[in-house]
C-alpha cells in the first residue's frame, strides 16, 4: 500500500505542479478565481475529513485491541457517513452553486465580469483536482463497504486486522491530499489582510 500511495503522490503531484506553475504565471487571475470559492464550505469539509480519519483510526484500534465487531462496524460506518457528508457538502453546496453561477468550464460557463479566461483556467484546476480527489473518496467508500461486510462476517481479530490497517493508510492519504488542496485552492488567495 505504501508503494501504491507513492504512485498516488506522483499522480496528484503532477496536477499540483501544473497548478503551481500556472498560479505563478497568472497570479492575479488565480487570486480572483480563488475568491469565487466559499471558504466556509471548504473548512467544513476539512473538519469532516479529519474527523473521518479519526473514526477510521478508532476502528483499527478497536480491532487491534480485540474489541467487538459491532464497535468496529460502528466506527467504520461513521467514517463512511463522514465521507459521504464530505461528498454531499461538495456536491450540494459547492458544485451545485458553481453550476448555477456558471463557473464550470466546459459544462456551464458564463463569461464576463469576474469570469475571465484566467479564472476559467483556475476553475479548471479546481474541478480537476477536487474531482480527482472526490473520485478517490468514492473508491474509499467502496473499500469501506467491503470492510464493513468483512467485519460483519467476523473476519477481523486482534491477530488479523491488516485489511483495516491498509485501507486506513489509503483513507488517511486521501485526507492528506485534501489538507493540501484546501489551502492551495481556497486560502492563499490573499483574502485575509496581511497575507
Amino acid at each position, binding site marked *: 500500500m505504501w*508503494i*501504491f500511495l*507513492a*504512485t*498516488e503522490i*506522483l*499522480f496528484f*503531484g*503532477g*496536477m499540483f*505542479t*501544473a497548478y503551481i*506553475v*500556472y498560479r505563478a*504565471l*497568472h497570479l492575479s*487571475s488565480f487570486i480572483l478565481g480563488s475568491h469565487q470559492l466559499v471558504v466556509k464550505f471548504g473548512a467544513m469539509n476539512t473538519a469532516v475529513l479529519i474527523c473521518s480519519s479519526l473514526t477510521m483510526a478508532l476502528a483499527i484500534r478497536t480491532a487491534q485491541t480485540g474489541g467487538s465487531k459491532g464497535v468496529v462496524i460502528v466506527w467504520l460506518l461513521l467514517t463512511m457517513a463522514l465521507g459521504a457528508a464530505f461528498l454531499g457538502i461538495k456536491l450540494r453546496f459547492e458544485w451545485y452553486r458553481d453550476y448555477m453561477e456558471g463557473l464550470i*468550464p*466546459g*459544462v456551464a460557463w458564463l463569461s464576463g465580469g469576474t469570469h475571465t*479566461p*484566467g479564472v*476559467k*483556467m483556475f476553475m*479548471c484546476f479546481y474541478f*480537476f483536482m477536487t474531482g480527482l480527489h472526490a473520485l478517490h473518496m468514492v473508491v474509499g467508500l467502496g473499500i469501506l463497504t467491503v470492510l464493513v461486510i468483512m467485519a460483519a462476517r467476523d473476519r477481523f481479530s486482534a491477530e488479523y486486522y491488516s485489511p483495516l490497517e491498509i485501507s486506513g493508510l489509503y483513507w488517511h492519504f486521501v485526507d492528506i491530499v485534501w489538507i493540501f488542496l484546501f489551502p492551495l485552492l481556497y486560502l492563499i488567495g490573499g483574502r485575509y489582510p496581511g497575507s
Partner: protein
Amino acid sequence: MSTAIRDLHDAPAEPAVNYLNASYGIKSWLLTLDHKRIGLLYLASITVMFVVGGVAATLMRMHLVEPQGALFEPETYNKMFSTHGIIMVFFFLVPSIPATLGNFLIPLMIGARDVAFPKLNLMSWYIFITGAALALYGTISGGVDTGWTFYPPYSSLYSETHVVAVALGIFIAGFSSILTGLNFIVTIHKMRAPGMTWFRLPLFIWALYATSLIFVLGTPVIAITVFLLGLERLLHVGIFDPAVGGDPLLFQHMFWFYSHPAVYIMILPGMGVISELVTAFSRKKIFGYSFVAFSSLSIAVISFIVWGHHMFVTGQAIYAGLVFSVLSFLVAIPSAVKVFNWTATLYRGSISYEAPMLYALGFIGLFTIGGLTGLFLASLATDVHLNGTYFIVAHFHYIMVGGAVMAYLGGIHFWWPKISGRMYPDMWARISAAIIFIGFNLTFFPQFMLGYLGMPRRYAVYPAEFQVLNVLSSAGASILGIGYVIPLVYLAWSMRYGPVAGPNPWNAKGLEWTIPSPPPTENFEEVPIVTEEAYNYPAIEAHHYPDAQGVARV
C-alpha cells in the same frame, strides 16, 4: 566449437505434469494465477503488438525510398510514424522484458512459488489488454497523426484524429505497468528464499527492481499528462492553449518527466538479461557485482532529473539547459561502468557462442554506440544542430532496437528451454542473430549521417540529396525484418518438434535451472535454501608464486 548444450540425449524426460499441462482449456489460461502462464499471456500479446508496430515501420521505410514518397500521402505517413512509435513504446518496449521474462523468472530466481499478488498480476494483464485494444481500435479507425509525443497545441486543438481513444489506451495500459512494478517490488522485498540475501540476487533481479521503481514513480505522471490532454481535447478548457493563458511547454515538461525515465524502463531490464547471459556463456562470476547492481539503481534515480534534455531548443532558460546537460552526462556513467564490467567478465572465461551469447555480444557493441551517441545530444552545442533530425532517430533505435530488443531476444532464447521444455535449432538461431545484427546496422547507421546533414525527422517527403542514405536504410530494414520473422518460425516449431531440453541445458547457475523444464506450477517442491553467491561457477584460483626475485606473479 564445443557448445554449452549438454548432449540432449542424456536429458531426463520432460516431467509428466508441468505448468503448461497442469490444466487444460482456455479458461484455465484466461483465469490463471500462475505467474508463468501470465508471462506467456503477455508474451503472446506483445508479440502481436510488435508485429503491428513492425508492419508500420516496414511501410514507412518502403515509403521513404523516394524523395517524394513512394507509397502514401503525407497524412497517411504521419499516421504511420505515430502508430509505429506509440505501439512500439507503450505496448511493446515498456512491457517487453518485465512483463514476459520478469513475470516468468522473478519468483524462480528468488526461490518463491509465485509473485506477491497473483490476482493483481492477472489483473495487470487484463488492464494491458484493454489499453492495447483501445489503442488498436484508435489505430484501425483512422489512427492518430500527432507522433508518439502528442505535443499540443497540435494534438489538443488542431489534429482531427482519434487522439482521445489512443491516449485513453495509453492511460489504461499505464496502470498495468504500475501494478506490475508494485508486485515486483513487494515480491523481491518479501519473498526471497532463506539465504537469498540482497547481494546474492541475480543481477536480473536488481535490474528489474530498479525498473519497477521507475514504473511506480514515473507512470502516474504520464497518466496525469495524458488525462489533461484528453480533457483539453474534449472540453476545450485551454490548459495548453496559449490564447487563453495556457502553456504548451508545460505539457512537454510533464510528458518528458515520465518519458525519459520510461526509456530507462526499456533498457534496464535488457541490461539485466545481458548480465545473466554473459555470465552463463563465459561460465564466470560477473566482474564487479556490486558496481553493476548499484549502477542499475543510480540509473533509475538519475533518470528522473534529466528530462529537460529533450527541450534544449524550446527557448528554455540557458541555466536550465546547463543543469540538464550536466545531469545527462552524469547518467551516462553508470551505463559505461556496466559495459566495462560485462567486457571484463569475458576475461579468462570459458566462452561459447550459442545464439543467446551472440545476442548479448551484439547488445554490448550496439549499446555502446547508441549510448555514446547520446553524448552528442547531452552536449548542448551539438544538440542544437541535431535535435529533431534523424540523428535522434538513429540514437534511440540503437538503444531500443540494437539494445533492448536484442536483449529481449537473447533472453527469450536463453530461457526458452525453461519456458517450453524444448530446445530450438541453434544454427537457425545463430543465423537470425547475425541477420538481425547486419540488417540493423545497415538500417540505422546511415541515419546518423542523415541527421548530421540536416534531414529532419517525421518528414514524409525530403530533398533529393538525402535519397542515397534513405535507400540504404530501407534496404537494411528489409534485412532486419527477415531476421525478426525467422525466430517466430523456429520457436513455434520447437514447441512441438524440438528436442527435450532437460532442467539445465546450458549448465548455468541460478535457482531457475535447478528445477525441471518446464517447471511445475508450484515451482519448487521444497523451498530452496541459498548458500552461495550469484554466478558461483567453479573456478580455479590463480596462484601467486613468488619467483626467484621474490616477486609474485599470477
